[in-house]
């Protein structure tokens, strides 16, 4: 679609102490497109997202936003660029209620006073658009929400803002059937509105239903970056589980990645 990526990450390395989790990872996000980021458990998807959003500092690599190289040192920097993230570990404040969480860091004020009615109304509108039905009150503490309700609040929090890139890390994992449909629809609609959307998911049906491009990570390396229309379901599954599929993916001679101990039963790779 668009020729220049909105967000371009190149050569990212990231280690936690002695463990290197990302090796020279790259990814492009184009405006108006949904880029699906897939990979096995522990492949490094969430770590990549956290590097991009300034939660982790990366050991090496560059981030280019809108053609310019940027330095993202904290979530504030990312937010300033218009990057909004729904994290897998939701990061809500259990001691605050739904509205307070949704507007955290960007409270509406009138003068110096918080404009609670406006925020409550906006929160209500956004949640309604996400098929939330069983929330008793918007003033309920998020600590008392069900798994799916928490996730919806986190999603609502991120889509409330006019950002340029929205990254969603397994946003539908805990959602019910109707809510999942709503979120996928929302993802598509955001892309159609010109945003760059990154969707992390283990559900291949969802990935193929909604994405334009797929980036596959394998043991902390970019195995492939392809257009969704160019690949099949089973090719992607192969990329995820073994890092390569036909002529796609990582070179075959690489060993099972240094430092990781393979404790998979033989035969489970199929």
């Amino acid at each position, binding site marked *: 679609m668009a020729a220049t990526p909105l967000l371009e990450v190149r050569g990212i390395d990231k280690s936690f102490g002695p463990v290197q989790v990302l090796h020279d990872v790259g990814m492009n996000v184009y405006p108006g497109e949904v880029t699906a980021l897939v990979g096995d458990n522990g492949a490094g998807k969430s770590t990549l997202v956290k590097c991009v959003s300034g939660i982790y500092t990366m050991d090496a690599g560059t981030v280019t936003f809108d053609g310019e190289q940027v330095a993202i040192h904290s979530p504030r920097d990312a937010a300033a660029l218009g990057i909004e993230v729904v994290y897998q570990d939701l*990061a809500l404040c259990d001691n605050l209620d739904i509205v*307070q969480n949704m507007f955290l860091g960007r409270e509406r004020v009138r003068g110096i*006073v918080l404009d609670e009615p406006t925020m409550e109304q906006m929160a209500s*509108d*956004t949640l309604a658009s996400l098929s939330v039905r069983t929330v008793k009150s918007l003033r309920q503490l998020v600590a008392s929400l069900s798994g799916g309700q928490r996730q919806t609040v986190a999603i609502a929090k991120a889509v409330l803002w006019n950002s340029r890139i929205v990254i969603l890390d397994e946003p539908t994992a805990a959602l019910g059937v109707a809510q999942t449909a709503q979120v996928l629809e929302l993802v598509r609609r955001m892309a159609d509105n010109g945003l760059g959307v990154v969707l992390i998911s283990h559900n291949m049906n969802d990935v193929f239903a909604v994405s334009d491009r797929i980036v596959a990570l394998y043991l902390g390396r970019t195995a492939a970056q392809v257009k969704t229309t160019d690949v099949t379901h089973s090719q992607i599954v192969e990329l995820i589980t073994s890092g390569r599929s036909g002529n796609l993916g990582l070179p075959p001679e690489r060993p099972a990645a240094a430092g990781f101990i393979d404790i998979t039963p033989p035969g489970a790779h199929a």
Partner: protein
Amino acid sequence: MTTAYSSPMRVAEPTVAGHLHDYWGRVRGGDIGSLPAILGLIVLCLIFGIARPTFFSAVNFANLFSQGAAVIFIAMGLVFVLLLGEIDLSAGFASGVCGAVMAILLTDQGWHWYSAIPVALATGLAIGFTLGFLVSKLGIPSFIVTLAGFLAFQGILLVLLSGGKNISVRDPFVLSLANNNMPAGLSWTLTAVAIIGYAAVQLVRFRGRAVRGLVTEPMGIVLARIAGLAALLVAAVAVLTQERSINPLIISVKGVPIVAPLIAVALIVWTFVLGRTTFGRHVYAVGGNKEAARRAGIAVDRIRISVFVIGSFMAAIGGIIAASRANSVDPNSGGSNVLLYAVGAAVIGGTSLFGGKGRVLDAVIGGAVIAVIDNGMGLMGFSAGQKFIFTGLILLLAASVDALSRRRAAATGNR
């Protein structure tokens, strides 16, 4: 994109009965705010009142305010620190240092109160900034930073008072702060202002929500709350404006102690800051989940520094009030039990040591519990050892009333 939807919330009609039912549900569920602490307070008052009828005299009631004031001010500041899950062990001696700075400027340097007090407060701000900086920028645990402060300020106090002198405070304005009363007329005027102000805020908020079609409390409840506060204030002021001099021929003592409105103003200001401003919201957020706050783009370090600044600033006020009450400053000002009592006040009121949970009102309620215990114990005439023991037991009793009335909270898994 959210505007693509109309707001479909069906707002339940607020009814008094429904509200009371909900409230009862919350109480049964253990979500009962300051009720248990107040219950504990009432139990204490009854015990002391029965043991020593003087306890309920007007003069004793008035004493309570100035006796509790310093600890309450310090505790208010500590609430902010505790809300972040931090601790400030140095608050007691910081209050002593600030009081000493004021006393030295007033008495030794001959300054006026209107220049000495600001310098003392500024000292508090500087202390808080230093502590906060060390905690948030160097990353040293606040327990250690403020333990170091506890020791260092104790030393500074000794040095300031050149190795152990006392410095008397003789400035009439400063002395009046903790020792004098407002004239009856002013007492009543302020009371009226307070009640009207409270009513206005409540009603404006009610209308603001109702107009937008948001869920409101029933009007009856709002009115009942206003009436309740009014009744409480009027009763208290009525008692306090009675003549309570032991020897009315020598001197007339009546009116609301000046510290009472001071406490009220601090309570209102900080409650406003915590509850109705962005800063307050961020304090709760950082205390509840630091990482979530950081991810939401909150400048966590700045918040951490600010709470220490507020903590030490309120400690400075506490120190000034203590100096006023004692008419002097000595090397032990702010020492002995001041710190533990201040932290205890906040915790008894319901503030959590783990952060994220607490209100400024907690400091006042908890401070009242401590002041009542101290006051009541003073009337009982125990020996030194007995007094310590009974103070401990009474504190435990007040806390168990609280704990037992919260028991259902645990039973419903709602902790």
